[in-house]
């Protein structure tokens, strides 16, 4: 609320104008700084809050179709006008040829579109093996561009998992007074517990699912979990991650939870602690889901393993998440008030002051006088 203190500035400005520049100021001009400041302050507060609560979550799906649109051109016919002196305009032909570059894209099973490179298209085209031509009947100039498509046959052998990014409102992350808010993790704790960075989308649509295990088993399990994410991503609105911590105490999982701010609202993160021989030491699932039974079942399943078996964990998790996972709606945290950070409050004050000074100068110098 301290941000609204900026609304006092136009009152002070109005007083100064009234007191010291009364001859250069018309009475209604005194309310211009107030009106502008009102709009500006409320807009700043709203904008800052949108940025503060904005979070990204990731959805899983499969490539359903790949498309290649060839390059083409079209003739744009138009007439433009130009000035030829005072009260004089002439028209001329400004038609041109518009060139449209070729592009390649995938359409996911959730009907989302992701742009890809020509090489990636070629790779997927070979995998699907059913490219077909589509005549687009364009009104082209000299180059007729058409479309080529390949379709996924709905089999697991050629299923290509896709991860897409979506925005949602996460007030918990921004409301530091909330008991659900996680404290920030410092650099030394990140190093001490080998905390994992949030994986990035690579090669247009790929995202790692098993993090912290570069063994052959780990890489195979990563593929399997990516597949599960593609399969359940849309159906259950879930994204599963497995984080492996070698030779770390269970505290690492708690720090990881804080580092990822409790994870996104659609995520189910399984933290597993092992020793160098891959013997399971602990397990802690992190998720906002209300299905606590799911968390306990996965935890017990992992802890019942002597040597970590990611393959059987994938099977178990797939079955359990499919039947029990319920995504939590962050709408239930709408009650949380989000205070803007101090730097943004100071910035708002400075900009409000600058706007008021600028308007005051204009008010004093303009042609309106008392």
């Amino acid at each position, binding site marked *: *609320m301290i941000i609204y203190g900026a609304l006092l500035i136009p009152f002070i400005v109005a007083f100064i104008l009234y007191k010291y520049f009364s001859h250069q100021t018309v009475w209604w001009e005194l309310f211009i700084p107030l009106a502008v400041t009102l709009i500006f302050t409320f807009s700043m507060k709203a904008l800052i809050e949108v940025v503060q609560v904005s979070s990204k979550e990731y959805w899983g799906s499969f490539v359903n179709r790949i498309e290649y649109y060839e390059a083409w051109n079209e003739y744009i016919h138009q007439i433009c006008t130009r000035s030829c002196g005072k009260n004089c305009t002439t028209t001329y032909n400004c038609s041109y040829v518009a060139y449209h570059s070729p592009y390649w894209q995938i359409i996911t099973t959730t009907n989302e579109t992701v742009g890809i490179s020509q090489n990636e298209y070629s790779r997927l085209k070979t995998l699907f093996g059913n490219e077909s031509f589509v005549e687009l009947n364009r009104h082209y100039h000299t180059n007729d561009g058409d479309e080529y498509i390949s379709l996924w046959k709905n089999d697991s052998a050629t299923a290509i998992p896709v991860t897409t990014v979506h925005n949602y409102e996460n007030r918990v992350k921004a409301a530091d*007074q909330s008991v659900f808010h996680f404290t920030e993790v410092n650099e030394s704790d990140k190093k001490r517990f080998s905390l994992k960075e949030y994986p990035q989308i690579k090669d247009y649509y790929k995202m790692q699912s098993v993090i912290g295990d570069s063994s052959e088993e780990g890489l195979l399990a990563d593929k399997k979990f990516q597949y599960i994410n593609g399969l359940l991503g849309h159906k259950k609105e879930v994204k599963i991650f497995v984080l492996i911590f070698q030779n770390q105490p269970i505290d690492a999982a708690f720090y990881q939870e804080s580092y990822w701010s409790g994870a996104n609202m659609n995520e189910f993160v399984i933290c597993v602690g092992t020793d160098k021989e891959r013997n399971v030491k602990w397990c802690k699932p992190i998720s906002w889901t*209300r299905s606590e039974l799911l968390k306990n079942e996965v935890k017990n399943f992992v802890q019942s393993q002597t040597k970590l078996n990611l393959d059987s964990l994938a099977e178990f998790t797939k079955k359990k998440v499919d039947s029990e996972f319920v995504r939590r709606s962050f709408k239930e945290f709408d009650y949380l008030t989000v205070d803007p950070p101090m730097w943004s409050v100071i910035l708002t004050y400075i900009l409000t002051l600058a706007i008021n000074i600028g308007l005051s100068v204009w008010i004093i110098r303009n042609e309106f006088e008392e």
Partner: protein
Amino acid sequence: MKTGIIIGVSVLTIAIILGTIGITASNKEIKLRSQITAQKEVCEAFYDKMWKIIAQKGQVAEQYKGAFKDIYPQLIEGRYGNEKGGTLMKWITESNPTFDISLYKDLQLSIEAERTGFFMEQKRLTDLNNEHRIVRQTFPASIFIGSREDIQITIVSSDATKKVMESGIENDIDIFKK
């Protein structure tokens, strides 16, 4: 200059700003109060939910429902022991002497899930109450709604925990003794 108009418009502007702040704060307070009441009911429903789990999985008769409230705070705190002994096992075998011990693991898993679920709901209740206090006590909303009543919420915990929180000393380190 028209001093009267200037003063009039200024007062009106200030009144509109203050009125907006007051109405917004008041509405938020009422909304939070209602959410806290609803959340209290959610927490209370967990008692019944946990009783039903025990009644079904532990085959405990309805007549023991009254006595269940005595061990409820300990279950909520996770102080229920295991199949070899502890609060829960003792209570079930007293209420149902023919209880099949092999079913204990499944019962424990369900109780654990309910316990964590209850903890999350209590956490939300605390959070709502915290937000309610902040809304009422921070300036400028405090001018309009500062005098409104605080809401009393009850956090379920055992006598042992209350003693520990009051004294700051935890001597009962052998609570899971077999």
